[in-house]
């Protein structure tokens, strides 16, 4: 399927990717009572925070170790310790998720070692869970930072179960959603799991922290997320499901901790993909039938596929997204007869790129999207909000997907997973096509226009 292309050039024009520490911070925000802490200069945090504030339209409690040139040379351990102490004083977080940046990784800080020392010397930090992930900006993108943070959370907070005396919660299942899944999508996945009488534990859970709700008080921490005391019990779940290939490593680690089966669902968009997930849920629940509501949702998706295929069949589109999201949307569209004439993605780390239904997948920027869409004759663009420049340049509609979506409201409510979400996605694509109203003209077919002598002399009627 897709051949991975890495353009040999020095310049990135209109970057597609957001940085890995930002992804880690976003994952940390899906934990109860959390404050993410970026270990770097204060600008690293300010930019990431502005990015998230604009996307979610929420206050984002993100903090920095405020490295300066002296602490960069001498090592940042003291800065981390001081930051934790200050955070405890001011926001009393239950969880501090630390992520490194290009600055501290280039200077070579041994943050894991520093943290160990800090814990040993500061017993007053015992009441806050400290988790650290190494996420230099120069390696990978948002998706990778998110995945590394979740792996770090599992590593730090889920205990190793004893293989022989393992207690299993028969109805409990771990779900590790990838970075691209919106709060509404996380909620939809949880709803599907519950429909089969199973209890999902979502890690992380943005559906309760960044879903956009009006709280009764100001906390200075995440407004919801996976409850901290539930995370250790994930070792007793019956199975671990990763949603998105980027979560495979975290899922494998979690499976090892609890000696439980692990399955990676690379996507939950498209009938086949959702069917696979539902079959797995049925197997886990030990049932051979599905609830009526789910059956009805599937039948409605089938109906939507019939209605939408007139508009998706033969559709040529260009997509720029992180690997997991690009895979999810493009496979769903491929199954509806659409063709990805250009695929640009952010990080070569995810093996799912090989399976993206396009000739090539370029690790590139929005400049590549513009060139590829133009060359391939695309009529629809799929990208995050910055794709609007390409859309304007090419005069094409833009379907906004990914991060950031800072020029529209409701990014957290977009749901393109499950039977219902797929149905909504197909309508979204078909409507984008339908919105380009096209008036046929004789010239377009090579016919001569009608002779002016036949035209009435009066005022022209405005075409509608």
């Amino acid at each position, binding site marked *: 399927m897709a051949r991975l292309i890495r353009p040999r050039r020095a310049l990135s024009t209109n970057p597609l990717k957001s940085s890995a520490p930002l992804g880690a911070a976003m994952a940390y925000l899906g934990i109860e009572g959390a404050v993410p802490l970026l270990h770097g200069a204060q600008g690293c945090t*300010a930019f990431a925070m502005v990015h998230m504030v604009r996307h979610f339209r929420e206050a984002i409690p993100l903090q*920095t170790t405020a490295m300066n040139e002296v602490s960069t040379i001498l090592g940042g351990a003291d800065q981390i310790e001081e930051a934790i102490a200050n955070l405890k004083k*001011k926001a009393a977080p239950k969880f501090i998720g630390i992520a490194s940046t290009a600055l501290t990784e280039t200077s070579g800080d041994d943050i894991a070692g520093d943290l160990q020392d800090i814990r040993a010397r500061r017993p007053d930090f015992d009441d806050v869970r400290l988790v650290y992930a190494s996420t230099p900006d120069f390696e990978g993108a948002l998706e990778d930072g998110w995945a590394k943070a979740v792996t770090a959370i599992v590593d730090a907070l889920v205990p190793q179960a004893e293989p022989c005396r393992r207690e299993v919660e028969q109805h409990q299942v771990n779900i590790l959603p990838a970075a691209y899944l919106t709060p509404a999508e996380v909620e939809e996945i949880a709803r599907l799991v519950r429909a089969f009488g199973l209890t999902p534990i979502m890690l992380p859970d943005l559906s309760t922290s960044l879903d956009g709700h009006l709280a009764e008080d*100001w906390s200075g921490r995440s407004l919801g997320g996976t409850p901290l005391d539930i995370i250790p019990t994930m070792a007793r779940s019956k199975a671990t499901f990763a949603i998105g290939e980027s979560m495979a490593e975290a899922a494998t680690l979690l499976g090892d901790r609890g000696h439980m089966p692990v399955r990676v669902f690379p996507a939950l968009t498209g009938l086949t993909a959702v069917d696979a997930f539902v079959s797995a849920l049925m197997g886990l629940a030990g049932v051979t039938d599905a609830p009526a509501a789910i059956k009805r949702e599937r039948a409605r998706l089938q109906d939507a596929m019939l209605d939408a295929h007139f508009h998706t069949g033969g559709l040529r589109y260009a997509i720029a997204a992180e690997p997991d999201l690009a895979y999810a949307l493009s496979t769903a569209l491929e199954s509806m007869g659409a063709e990805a004439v250009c695929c640009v993605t952010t990080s070569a780390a995810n093996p799912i790129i090989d399976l993206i239904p396009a000739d090539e997948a370029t690790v590139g920027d929005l400049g590549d999207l513009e060139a590829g869409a133009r060359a391939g004759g695309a009529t629809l663009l799929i990208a995050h909000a910055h794709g609007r420049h390409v859309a304007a340049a090419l005069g094409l509609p833009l379907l906004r997907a990914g991060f950031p979506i800072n020029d529209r409201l409701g990014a957290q409510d977009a749901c393109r997973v499950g039977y219902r979400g797929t149905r909504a996605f197909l309508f979204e694509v078909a409507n984008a096509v339908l919105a380009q109203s096209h008036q046929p003209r004789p010239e377009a077919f090579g016919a001569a226009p009608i002779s002016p002598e036949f035209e009435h002399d009066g005022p022209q009627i405005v075409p509608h």
Partner: protein
Amino acid sequence: MSGTLKRTVQDAFDEPACATNRAKSATARKAGCAKPLTPGAAAGGCAFDGAMITLQPIVDVAHLVHAPLACGGNSWDNRGSASSGSMLYKTGFTTDLTELDIVMGRGERKLYRAIGEIVEAHAPPAVFVYATCVTAMTGDDIVAVCKAAAQAFATPVIPVEVPGFAGSKNLGCKLAGEMMFRHVIGTREPAHTTDTDINIIGDYNLSGELWQVKPLLDRLGIRILGSLSADARYRQVAQMHRARVTMLVCSHALQGLARKLEETYDIPYFEGSFYGISDTSAALRSLCALLVKRGASADLLDRCEALIAEEEAKVRAALEPYRARVTGKRVLLYTGGHKTWSIVSALQELGVEVVGTSVRKATDNDKARVIQVMGTEAHMYENMAPRDMYATLKASGADILMSGARSQFVALKARTAWIDVNQEKHEPYAGYMGMVDLVRAIDRSVNNPMWAQLHRPAPWETTRPAAPGLGAAEGADGPGAPQANDCASGQDRLAPGEPADTANPADPADPASDFEDC
């Protein structure tokens, strides 16, 4: 930090034209005006951010960020400076350094090639190259690379050596001005000059604010020859040395540049603001007076007075219909400092009550003016933690918060109207016409019927449940539900017995500092 950068920083802080700096002792002056950042309690941008704020609005320049992804990738296309021409400044260029580039020391070569690729694809009048923490640390000599590239590609390539960890956003703004003085200003001669050519420094044409003022200048025959950097072309920076007068728009950060222009090229400068009616008039007066002093025809003063009289009468008439709608509304002003007081006095004229203002970046002079405008110093805030601000607003301490975007959600979550008055704002509020836009925005926001609905108790919170069997037939405004207006008056927002939330500790993030102009 390299020796040269260190000296540049020291110089930037020791600003003889700065009142705050002059008031300090020699040692305090040497220490500079940067406050050390507190880990875990810092907010706001870095020096690189500041440099970008100052320079990125130059619209036809290619701004190339030499860094791993985050510096450019997380920040491009995020400001509202408007352009009347080239859109190249909105394109995010970065060398996107990878681990291999850094480990193998390939940064300089990659930068050189990237400059070449930009010149080939876009042929800009200049390329600005921004150093960042990582490339400063790996020791990339961007000055040398820029010099070589400028020769090889026959295009000015300007090094902006302002890595983020050098300090705050404010320092970055200062240094950006210094870089322009060193490398750009004076490198081109204008095709012709007039005796009413001016420089405007420190305005960024956010949402087109410059254009709310430009019609006034147009009518007076005043030409904006040099600009840093509202709707600026590269040439307008390069030929700044030929202007007659510099207007420094409410910016302490770029004072050093204005002073250097005066010392080196004999261009006098004054500080002024285009926010509010009285300040706009004062700025026009100062501008014309200085121009006449420098040789412009003396009738400029009369034309200026006539214009002011006409425009002030027009704006007062335009504001009058809003008086009844905004009178008695209480505003909490939380911005970087001094630029909004003229707005305050205009709002007070309309009966708006200003219940407090921040004086975080204000000098003593500024504070004296607050007292003059507000009548008392009781309502000056040095710094307000988000949690305290939330508590104040929730306890109905104000009807409207006017601030930067960082505290937007503090206000909204406290169910209080919010007006954006910093650089992210989507509406321009400058000049006379901008004042009308601002009052319209206040009216539209604070008088929105949404607030009444928002404060309605939920069905399960009403004290008297509806009689059994009635249910929905009773209607939403039945006897069981209090009138919506009961809780929208601003007096009753706290339920009885619910304490105002003031006891909680402060929040780490300083709400205002991230989004301000420097």
